[in-house]
């Protein structure tokens, strides 16, 4: 059974801090790993990672995948209150395209 584990479950930091969110996975026939940000609505897409060691960057957010150690990290620098959300990691695997989600990391940024 495909498994995606995120840590920490919850994180509270002050504005301006840098945070690192972790996602590890055990799946058969890995295809891609995706990060989503979920506020009080649908998950919004952040990154899609398919290759090891290639950092994807968007503003203050960046992410990298390690296919050997089966994990990914999502970094957010200079955090802002608008970054407060649940960050979901999902893995696409197998011969189909379904996504298996982790339980998410709830990030809270304190002004």
């Amino acid at each position, binding site marked *: 059974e495909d498994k995606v584990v995120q840590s920490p479950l919850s994180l509270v930091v002050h504005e301006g801090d840098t945070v690192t969110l972790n996602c590890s996975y055990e799946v058969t026939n890995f*295809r*891609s790993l*995706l990060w*989503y940000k979920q506020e009080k*609505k*649908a*998950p*919004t*897409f952040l990154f*899609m990672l398919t290759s090891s060691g290639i950092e994807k960057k968007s503003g203050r957010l960046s992410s990298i995948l390690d296919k050997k150690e089966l994990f990914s990290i999502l970094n957010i620098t200079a955090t802002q209150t608008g970054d407060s959300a649940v960050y*979901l990691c999902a893995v696409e695997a197998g011969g*189909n*395209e*379904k*996504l*298996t*989600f*982790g*339980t*998410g990391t709830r990030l809270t940024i304190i002004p």
Partner: protein
Amino acid sequence: AAGVIQSPRHLIKEKRETATLKCYPIPRHDTVYWYQQGPGQDPQFLISFYEKMQSDKGSIPDRFSAQQFSDYHSELNMSSLELGDSALYFCASSLTDLNTEAFFGQGTRLTVV
């Protein structure tokens, strides 16, 4: 740009009733996924369709069924509703042949009373 459209946005039903949720994917997307997200939980995969054929099935109860129509929109039919079916139901779509990421709709919040 057009996004994934779900309707209705909110739905309140009584136990044992039937509900139908609709999903209109992004134009040209050929794959639709349905997810159920309970309060404080991560989305759970229910079912997916590729080119109008069921491509994968997850933890979808037998009381639920779904289909994808010729215009690629999809409907999730839920019968004999139970209190535990109360959740946010997301639909996502992607263009499988190009291995694009899945884009989510805003979800339908179903409350069973």
